[in-house]
């Protein structure tokens, strides 16, 4: 075994041994957990020398951490999305005293901690299954760690128009919070999931059945602890999947979105707005697989960077030879408000079908000086002119959100960030 493989395996062992082995779960879940432990030891922890971690140092994310204490105090109130969350997790555990997830028309809700004790088919069909599928071309060890050790999370089955569900999680003090969310949108059903707060390691598996629609809007504001998130989605025929994340500052955030278009005429969109100053580091890594023909995918990422902030975008479109007539699009752009801020982009296409339209582009630069002068020549002060141009720039990502009202909430966040910028 090479020295690097040794180092990776030792680091994986350290991560696993810092965390408790989940107990008293159903046999099937026990099996998923055991296999995940074996897979993680086989793959090893991520290290800087891994190509996939070239721009983001994973050492803080793969440091061995015990679970954060469950007895930690009262979390701050959540103002995100202008209302009280439907499900509230603190340090990796549901806090039923803060919010009780309840079933409504068109939706069944339970928790991950509950379903792994039972024999529930949607949990068995999703948990670990989509994550394993998402390891095909690139290893994602932090997601494997999550499969092996996650303590709780939200389990949602939408079988009609489920409306909006707001999921919030807090991370208080040191230690690991490991949440696993399982979501199934049944045929023709629709669900909007709002997500806020922070969690050191969160994985969401989303299965969207034929003609279903899943919308996901996530707010990451000033996340103080290193955070890794993964979304693994499987999109069946004519389904729709749209995820948008606004990340404002944050010590170290890595968001991976991995989805596979497995049924024809499916559509998957992933968008993000990054607003970062000081020494913030935000990484958006996307992997889109086109397995079926006539599908469409879009990736739209916009970064506004100040101070010594760093934004990373790694986006890949992988088209299997079965996926003729694929329409794949990717754009990542950044505005650097000063020297010292950095944008690192790695767009990738890997295409095995011959009749596809795939495009990608990436730009980086300062605010357009001509536009700045035009605005100022009409009397708009410099700071306000900057704010107008930045809002317009970020808007191209926010416009990916289908719901106008939610889009406006994101616009408010951009304005707030601009106003608070030091």
């Amino acid at each position, binding site marked *: 075994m090479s020295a690097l493989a040794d180092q990776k395996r030792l680091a994986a062992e350290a991560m696993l041994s810092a965390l408790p082995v989940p107990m008293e779960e159903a046999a099937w879940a026990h099996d998923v957990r055991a296999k995940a432990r074996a897979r993680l030891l086989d793959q090893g922890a991520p290290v800087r020398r891994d190509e996939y971690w070239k721009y983001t140092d994973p050492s803080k994310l793969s440091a061995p951490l015990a679970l954060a204490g469950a007895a930690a105090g009262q979390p701050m109130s959540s103002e995100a999305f202008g209302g009280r969350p439907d499900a509230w997790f603190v340090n990796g555990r549901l806090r039923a005293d803060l919010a009780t997830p309840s079933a409504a028309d068109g939706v069944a809700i339970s928790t991950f901690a509950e379903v792994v004790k039972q024999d529930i088919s949607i949990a068995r069909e999703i948990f670990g299954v989509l994550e394993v599928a998402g390891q095909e071309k690139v290893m994602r060890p932090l997601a494997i760690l999550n499969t092996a050790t996650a303590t709780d999370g939200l389990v949602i089955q939408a079988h009609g128009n489920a409306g909006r569900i707001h999921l919030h999680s807090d991370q208080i003090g040191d230690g690991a919070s490991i949440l696993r969310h399982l979501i199934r949108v049944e045929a023709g059903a629709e669900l909007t999931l709002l997500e806020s707060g922070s969690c050191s390691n969160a994985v969401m598996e989303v299965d969207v059945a034929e003609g279903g629609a899943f919308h996901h809007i996530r707010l990451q504001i000033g996340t103080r602890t290193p955070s890794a998130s993964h979304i693994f989605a499987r999109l069946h025929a004519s389904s729709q999947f749209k995820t948008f994340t606004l990340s404002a500052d944050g010590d170290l955030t890595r968001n991976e979105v991995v989805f596979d278009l497995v049924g024809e005429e499916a559509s998957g969109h992933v968008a993000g707005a990054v607003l970062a100053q000081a020494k913030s580091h935000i990484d958006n890594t996307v992997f889109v697989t086109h397995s079926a023909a006539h599908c469409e995918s879009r990736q739209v990422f916009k970064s506004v960077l100040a101070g010594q902030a760093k934004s990373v975008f790694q986006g890949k479109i992988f088209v299997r030879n079965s996926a003729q007539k694929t329409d794949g699009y990717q754009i990542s752009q950044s505005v650097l408000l000063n020297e010292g801020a950095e944008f690192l982009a790695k767009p990738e296409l890997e295409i095995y079908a011959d009749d596809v339209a795939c495009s990608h582009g990436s730009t980086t630069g300062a605010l357009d*000086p*001509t*536009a700045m*002068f*035009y*605005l*100022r*020549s*009409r*009397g*708009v*002060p*410099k700071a*306000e*002119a900057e704010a*107008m*141009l930045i*809002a*317009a*720039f970020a*808007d*191209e990502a926010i416009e990916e959100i289908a719901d106008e009202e939610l889009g406006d909430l994101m616009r408010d966040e951009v304005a707030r960030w601009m106003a608070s910028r030091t």
Partner: protein
Amino acid sequence: MLKIENLSVKLEEEDKQILNGLTLEVPAGKVHAIMGPNGSGKSTLSYVLAGRDGYEVTGGSATLNGEDVLDIDPEERAASGLFLAFQYPVEIPGVGNMTFLRTAVNSQRKARGEDEISAPDFLKLVRSKAKDLNIDMDMLKRPVNVGFSGGEKKRNEILQMAVLEPSMCILDETDSGLDVDAMKLVADGVNALRAEDRGFLVITHYQRLLDHIKPDVVHILANGRIVETGGPDLAMKVETEGYADILKDVA
């Protein structure tokens, strides 16, 4: 009103002198035209007055109502009444025309210590000015100048001028890229703004715009300074004889 004295300007990036001791005064209520061949410094003059980056004033002064304009930010110049109608109006994707215009009006009012205009009053104001210029309100809902035709862009410049009501208007080649009908529309818009307390500096390459916007005084700019000044007949002379002959006479 606008007084430019012995103004010398060079490009910041390269050691290239563009204006060489330009002197000019536009009194309130008057329309002055500047004509000149390509490369004579016409656009540089307009940009330097409006405060664009990239130019270095190496000598002389420019004042508006007695106050130095070269020393203040572009937004302060605008608030003190200076307006430049751009030769190439800038497209700004994602910024709505109405938002832009209302922000501009209110920023200027705020800078002058005035109250902001109310939303209904603003809408009423823009509606009436847009109607005069034959501008569709739907066009104003679009982002600033994005997808506008050349004529629409120029009309939008004049609309901004009409709404902002500056005291000193500089028009940089406003006729470029316009057909006869569009030019007439733009000229009518400018003429409607002519007033006792407002001065105009109309920069143009051709005489034809001056058929519609009748100047009181015409200057010829060459090699960065005014080489000849006269009445409207000077523009006619340019039209019939070309710049070469006039410049030869001057030399």
